[in-house]
């Protein structure tokens, strides 16, 4: 003890560090130099791209069979249509691949899926619906990248509707007896499903949800140009812990589809695509005992009467033909305008076209995205050339199209006769043909004068006329003062060469069930 204060150990003061710099003076935000933003002379919207980072695309994908990834014998490249960037290598499904998939589906069916109670099946469907909602942004970005449609559409239409379909059919899974009282509904077995490239994930939902709800198992072939969202969907199936083999995905082109259609182990085929291919499938299946539903093309009449709310009718017309670049089977591709308002309506329509923004599908302000493929672009160009040649008058708003990728400006043809190819054949692009009519009877006659019969639109403020027209239009779906409205509870499908069978609603269960009576 001793020493007192004098002998207290000296505090060791460390030498000042030589590697530290002087502290920065604190500067108030108000005093910081202001970033001089280049204010443009006019109001051009700056680009607003959605980030790609949210989705991870593998370099190579196999086929998803029996809950596992099957190494593909042969692959092909799938690209982004906005700039032809290669995205991934995916399998070109062979007969052997299809065979494996069907066998896996059969095994899963027999193994218990068909005898699982409806409420248990429902739980898987609810899980899938919920997962789609949670991963919605990821899927939307992928869909826009691989397919070409604007992110605004994949985010606000495709994804919500896809999740909604799974929710809706989850609700039916344990109520089949009520859906078809006294008919003893039972699943069909293994369903082979072939879907198109215009709404890749949504079409997958339209096919898979009712099939599973009814106790069937599935082999699905996505479209050749848009396999990626279906392949990412397999990850959702893994997360949902769906029993292996209940849903199998085999990618490839038309040959893979043909192999699936012809396979003896498949009990039912569901096809959405062109009328030409649909007819081929129907011929192939004749006498085979396989069940079939077809959802094919259309050449819908969008009919505007002189008492319609004009500005809103123009919105409906634009939505009807330019939504998804016109790659819609139910697109309102024939506009019938009552002659008495022809001029003001066409003037408004042309003016409206000039505010449509064609551009990068991943830009949130884009209204019209890329055409899905070089092949489709060629078809559109050929038909548009035929329109000009046959004497129709073409209008396209001035717009700069990107150099790489597949693009087509929104187009309106006036002075179109019913006999022109652009009024008869499905263009499946952003091309509208405008024709006129004088009376409601004439509108019906001309609207029905087509081998197709998928959808139609009626624009009038007169309620009695809406009902009158709807009764007489030969179309599976009639929209009044609106267009392109979908809901999982509403059955969708066509008359005549637009196919048969319905998807959505209670009607959508029927193709996936066998009945005793």
């Amino acid at each position, binding site marked *: 003890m001793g020493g007192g204060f004098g002998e207290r150990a000296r505090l060791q003061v460390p030498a000042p560090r030589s590697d530290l710099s002087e502290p920065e003076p604190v500067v108030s935000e108000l005093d910081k130099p202001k970033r001089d933003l280049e204010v*443009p002379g006019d109001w051009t919207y700056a680009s607003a791209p959605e980030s790609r980072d949210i989705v991870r695309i593998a370099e190579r994908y196999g086929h998803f069979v029996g809950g596992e990834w099957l190494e593909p014998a042969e692959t092909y490249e799938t690209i982004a249509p906005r700039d032809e960037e290669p995205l991934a290598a995916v399998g070109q499904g062979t007969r052997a691949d299809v065979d494996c998939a069907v066998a896996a589906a059969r095994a899963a069916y027999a193994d218990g899926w068909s005898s699982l109670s409806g409420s248990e099946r429902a739980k898987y469907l609810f899980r899938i619906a919920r997962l789609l909602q949670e991963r919605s942004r990821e899927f939307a970005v992928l869909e826009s990248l691989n397919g070409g449609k604007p992110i605004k559409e994949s985010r606000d239409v495709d994804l919500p509707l896809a999740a909604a379909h799974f929710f809706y059919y989850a609700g039916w899974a344990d109520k089949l007896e009520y859906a078809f009282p006294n008919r003893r509904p039972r699943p069909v077995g293994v369903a082979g499903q072939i879907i198109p490239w215009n709404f890749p994930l949504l079409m997958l939902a339209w096919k898979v949800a009712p099939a599973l709800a009814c106790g069937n198992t599935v082999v699905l072939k996505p479209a050749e140009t848009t396999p990626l969202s279906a392949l990412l969907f397999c990850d959702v199936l893994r997360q949902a812990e769906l029993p292996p083999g209940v849903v199998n995905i085999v990618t490839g082109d038309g040959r893979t589809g043909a192999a699936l259609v012809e396979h003896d182990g498949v009990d039912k085929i569901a096809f959405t695509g062109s009328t030409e291919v649909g007819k081929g499938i129907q011929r192939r299946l004749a006498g085979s005992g396989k069940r079939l539903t077809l959802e094919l093309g259309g050449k819908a009449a969008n009919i505007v009467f002189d008492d319609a*709310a004009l*500005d*809103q009718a123009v919105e409906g017309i634009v939505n009807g033909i330019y939504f998804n670049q016109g790659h819609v089977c139910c697109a309102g591709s024939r506009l019938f305008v009552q002659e008495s308002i022809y001029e003001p309506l066409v003037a408004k329509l042309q003016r409206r076209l000039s505010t449509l923004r064609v551009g990068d599908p991943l830009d949130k302000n884009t209204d019209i995205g890329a055409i899905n493929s070089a092949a489709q672009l060629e078809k559109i160009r050929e038909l548009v050339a035929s329109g000009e040649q046959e004497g129709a008058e073409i209008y396209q708003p001035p717009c700069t199209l990107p150099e790489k990728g597949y693009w087509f400006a929104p187009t309106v043809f006036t002075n179109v006769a019913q006999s022109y190819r652009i009024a008869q054949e499905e263009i499946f692009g952003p091309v509208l043909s405008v024709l006129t009519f004088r009376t409601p009877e004439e509108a019906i006659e001309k609207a029905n004068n087509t081998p197709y019969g998928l959808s139609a639109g009626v624009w009038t*403020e007169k309620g009695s006329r809406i009902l009158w027209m709807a009764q007489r239009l030969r179309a599976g779906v009639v929209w009044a*003062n609106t267009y392109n409205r979908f809901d999982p509870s509403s059955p969708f499908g066509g008359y005549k060469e637009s196919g048969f069978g319905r998807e959505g609603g209670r009607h959508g269960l029927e193709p996936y069930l066998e009945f005793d009576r």
Partner: protein
Amino acid sequence: MAQAPALPAGFELPLEARLPRIGAVDAVALEERAASLAKRSIKREAKVWALLLAIRTTDLTTLEGADTPGKAAALASKARRPDPSDASVPPVAAVCVYPNLVPAVRERLAGSDVKVAAVATGFPSGQYPTAVKLADVRSALELGADEIDMVIDRGAFLSGRYAKVYDEVAQVKEACGGAHLKVILETGELGTYDNVRRATLLAIAAGADFVKTSTGKIAPAATLPVALCMLEAIRDVYEETGRRVGFKAAGGIRQAKQAVQHLVLVHETLGPEWLTPELYRLGASSLVNDVLMQLRKERTGAYQSPDYFTLD
């Protein structure tokens, strides 16, 4: 601006029989179109451009029973120089007050280009005899107003007395002389978009220089669908007659984001020619500080506390 109003096609007087057949508007489609335009993503330079335009087209407003010359003068100071720390922020278009406050505002605005707008015609209800309304207009002009914001007689409109509504607007326009007339429809009381369209065309036919959505005293006021409905009517008049009528969105616009959405509506419906204080106004009070906050954020990268933006 003073010229004989050109009537849009099919809009001949007398009005009682004709007006109910004019102006079909589909509500569902209108609301969808407005919602879809509201989704436009306006960023960076485009956003700054819009924010500056919002300031330049604002009618800075106070319409309270408790307004005093002191309060009105303070608002006028704010109108002249919205952001004292940033000289690049322009003054607003006008200050809008009750007639009694016009002299105080005028004095504080002397030497600037900011206009003085007075509400008149028995604002906000309009439930007074025409003679009283006209006297109101005249005295507002005598007190020094450059612009008059009148209200239509909604009681007359909703009971089908369209000619009376028309006459009143025409008489007020006459009393205005060369002063700029805005006609307030009070869309929240009209009930349907069809009625909004009809009232817009009616006001324009009677001589309005501007059509305005609301008094700001009730809700709903300037919603995007209502604004779109009126803009489409303005567009139709322009297409048919070449006459440009201005639009003022007033009531309920408190955030910069809403203001930008309203500007997008005009940009994509009428075109860039309408994006000027001569043809477009935003009636607002607290909006200005929110716009200034957004501008500061675009320039410095950070949001400031409201304390850094003066109330007046």
